[in-house]
């Protein structure tokens, strides 16, 4: 491994120098923890490869995505987190997807085989298509589920659809129904010694499915 000899996690300026040489479009991204950079989405695989070979980021921790808002443009950003097992530090790479309706990003399965399931999950829940992914199927929801549940326009309770197995749906008459929220989502109170009080409950129990939330709230 040709990691630079300096000990400790790579600093922002060091990584910026490495990236700027090959990718002039790189921009530093405001961050609360690890060095973070913004790149054009098409350049990400090459940049990750460079970080792997030049800066010792040998471990892909995570791939995820952000839906900024239904109205926002660019609406989707994909996020990659790398870790260096030699210098014990992280770096975050963020890229905006070009399309707000059919977001895509290049796959990095060729660099890390472990990217496979991360990309499938990001596709399943956020609807980002990873080009050149060897097997881009849903991983949590069932094949044929029509929505991407972590998008901002998807309600937590869900949307009515048929059961994954139509035959069972026919026998039982059951469908995928929006879950009753009853004033939820439900949150537990931490630091509560009385377990009955600490049980997860809706913060606002004044409304539920049968008595609508007042418009003034």
């Amino acid at each position, binding site marked *: 491994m040709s990691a630079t000899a300096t000990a400790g996690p790579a600093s922002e300026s060091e990584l910026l120098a490495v990236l700027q040489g090959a990718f002039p479009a790189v921009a530093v991204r405001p961050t609360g923890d690890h060095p973070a950079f913004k790149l054009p989405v098409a350049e990400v695989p090459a940049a990750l490869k460079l970080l792997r070979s030049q800066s010792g980021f040998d471990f892909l921790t995570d791939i995820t995505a952000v839906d900024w808002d239904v109205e926002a443009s660019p609406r989707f950003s994909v996020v990659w987190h790398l870790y260096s097992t030699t210098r014990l530090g992280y770096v975050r790479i963020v890229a905006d997807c070009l399309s707000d309706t059919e977001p895509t990003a290049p796959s990095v399965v060729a660099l890390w085989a472990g990217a496979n399931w991360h990309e499938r999950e990001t596709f399943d829940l956020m609807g980002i298509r990873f080009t050149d992914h060897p097997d881009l199927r849903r991983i*949590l*929801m*069932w094949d044929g589920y029509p*929505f991407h*549940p972590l998008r901002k326009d*998807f*309600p*937590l*309770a*869900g*949307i009515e659809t048929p*059961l*994954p*197995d139509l*035959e*069972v*749906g026919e*026998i*039982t008459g*059951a469908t*995928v*129904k*929006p*879950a*009753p*929220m*009853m004033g*939820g*989502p*439900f949150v537990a109170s931490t630091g509560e010694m009385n377990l009955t009080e600490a049980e*997860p409950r809706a913060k606002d129990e004044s409304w539920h499915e049968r008595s609508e939330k007042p418009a003034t709230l």
Partner: protein
Amino acid sequence: MVTPNTELTYNTKIEGDIVVTRVDAVINWLRSNSVWPMPMGLACCAIELMASASSRFDIARFGSEVFRFSPRQADCMIVAGTVTYKMAPHVRRIYDQMAEPKWVIAMGACASSGGMYRSYATLQGVDKIIPVDVYISGCPPRPEALLDALIKLQDKVTRNGGTTKQLLSA
């Protein structure tokens, strides 16, 4: 001259090796004391289900120690855990493969009502897809609660009327 019978128990010396009862009662009694569970362990509740089978709680005391992972050989499906919509059809198919008579225990808040998972991915109660005989509250219920549910189920099985008729007409 009739002497009142003071014998409280069955005396084979006087009455011979014969017990008089109803077929229904015998069959129900046999069934209720050898309920073979089909462990449908789907989430955390399954850990308590496993504990019920361990020596400390010993579900064998109630004749249910024979956990069968084949639906063909099981009488009672114990749904222990969160039933996701993705899993729900499989639960139903396994239930369909169990031979009659069969029963279902919904163990824990998730199996009974979806529990704390009010979300797009979770079936809000396994009774939406299979008939449930006994519900257990708790998240998770302690093994004692499962044993209590089993006793309730045994009660229900023993009280079943017309067992023989059902068998003959089946």
